[in-house]
């Protein structure tokens, strides 16, 4: 049974009197411990799917099931223990006036989990940050270090599913590779399921078992890693996207 099932999902934003369909009729399913990619240019609705799963975007049609059960609205605390998200911008996803310690301890406080000190120290260690960083503020960290903190925060509740919204697109190339390797290691160690958004096929190729190509809010084509590597795409759009990043895919 698939861990994440999305059937005919549509998301419609109402701005002023107009309505904008950000996602139209997209279906996908992700098996447990699989890493699934969503790729497309900006505005193709890939991030909106992640936000819809978290209840941060207005779902206008379709069904979302996590581990076979339909998600509740509002999502509730039980959902938080299954699904967590890492945001794109490491500069905007950490509260500027909270220490790293507070950021990491907060999910534990919300869910009434004790043993805070040990868990925070272990989480820092898990993402490769020295324990000395514990009481720093976000502005005392680099972008890559901040993103590590955001990943540690997402793992505090020990979720099975991690939604990754372009987790490395705001980082420079070397830090990007480090962060992707960290994510791969954590996935293996914690048995995580990834649903990852990127505009970069090279990143997706490095990370994902399967990938869904999206354009204008619709699903274009689903590809396995083998199909991606062999350039066996059937649609023109997927092919142009592939050709745009093919040279860099060889490097990774």
């Amino acid at each position, binding site marked *: 049974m698939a861990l994440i099932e999305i059937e005919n999902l549509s998301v419609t934003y109402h701005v002023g009197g107009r309505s904008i369909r950000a996602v139209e009729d997209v279906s996908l399913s992700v098996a447990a411990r699989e890493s699934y990619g969503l790729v497309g240019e900006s505005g193709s609705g890939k991030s909106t799917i992640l936000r819809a799963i978290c209840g941060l975007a207005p779902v206008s049609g379709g069904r979302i099931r996590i581990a076979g059960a339909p998600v509740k609205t509002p999502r509730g605390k039980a959902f938080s223990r299954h699904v967590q998200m890492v945001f*794109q911008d490491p500069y905007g996803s950490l509260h*500027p006036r909270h220490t790293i310690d507070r950021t990491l301890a907060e999910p534990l406080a919300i869910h009434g989990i004790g043993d805070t000190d040990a868990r925070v120290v272990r989480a820092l260690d898990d993402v490769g940050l020295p324990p000395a960083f514990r009481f720093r*503020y976000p502005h005392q960290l680099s972008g890559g270090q901040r993103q590590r903190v955001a990943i540690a925060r997402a793992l505090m509740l020990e979720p099975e599913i991690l939604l990754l919204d372009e987790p490395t697109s705001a980082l420079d190339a070397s830090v990007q590779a480090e962060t992707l390797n960290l994510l791969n290691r954590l996935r293996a160690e914690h048995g995580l399921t990834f649903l990852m958004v990127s505009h970069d096929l090279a990143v997706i190729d490095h990370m994902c078992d399967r990938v869904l190509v999206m354009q204008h809010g619709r699903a274009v084509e689903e590809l396995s890693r083998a199909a991606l590597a062999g350039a066996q795409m059937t649609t023109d759009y997927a092919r142009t996207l592939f050709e745009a990043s093919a040279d860099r895919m060889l490097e990774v």
Partner: protein
Amino acid sequence: MGQITSWLRDPNPASRLQARIGQYYLGWLRLSRNPLAMIGLTIVLSLLVMAAFAPLFATHDPIAQDLGQRLLPPGTPGHWLGTDDFGRDLWTRIVYGARITLYIVALVALTAPLFGLIVGTVAGYFGGWLDQVLMRITDIFLAFPKLILALALVAVLGPGVENAVLAIALTSWPPYARVARAETLTVRNADYIAAVRLQGAGALRIIWGYVMPMCLPSVIIRVTLDMAGVILTAAGLGFLGLGVQPPLPEWGLMISSGRKFLFEQWWVATIPGLAIFIVSLGFNLLGDGLRDVLDPRSSGK
């Protein structure tokens, strides 16, 4: 000394407390580089000291009358700022008046911003009809001129220090609500709010722990800059006889009593006027300095 400084500046603080104190220390360093802010801080601190140790600074009794010594000019031996029409020493009355001024300022500064902050963050965070209702109520309060509304309230409640404070607080919260709401609207869609909401945090936790700390700097700056206005409104109410009642040495009331002989004995009204001027200036300078320190857009540098 060097040990304390290095403890404060430690980039890897060992505890929550050290991290917080370190941040305050950096803020203090920024504030102390601004000479005008330091002048403001000095004025405000001297006012605090003067009020706390009023009996030590005063040379006479602030209420006891001595009609033989009335209306002496500044510079008279024993009364270096002169005396008023009941022969009371002006310096003593200014010193004791600092207590009343600070009492009013402190009460207003505690109640009005807190109330405005709650209204503004709740309205901004929830949005929708709650926002509409709360902001229209705010608009109603903003539609009246401040002093007129305070006058009306005091006229209903009756004159006195507590009622003056209540009237001033009730007329000064709407701007804080506006500021807090504006700030809330900019942070409510931030990723860190989405992240904590995804962790299952309730509205109360988000507003208290995440939204309010972001609104606090703008509100604190606004409060410091408004303190001058609060002192002036309190003095205005005192001047009109609706605030503090005689024989208490409130500065506005002192100006009011000096008005009758402004041309012959100018000092009776001028000296409390100067006191109000200096203290207002102090709060304004401090507020300007705090803006540079607390502005979230400039922090972290």
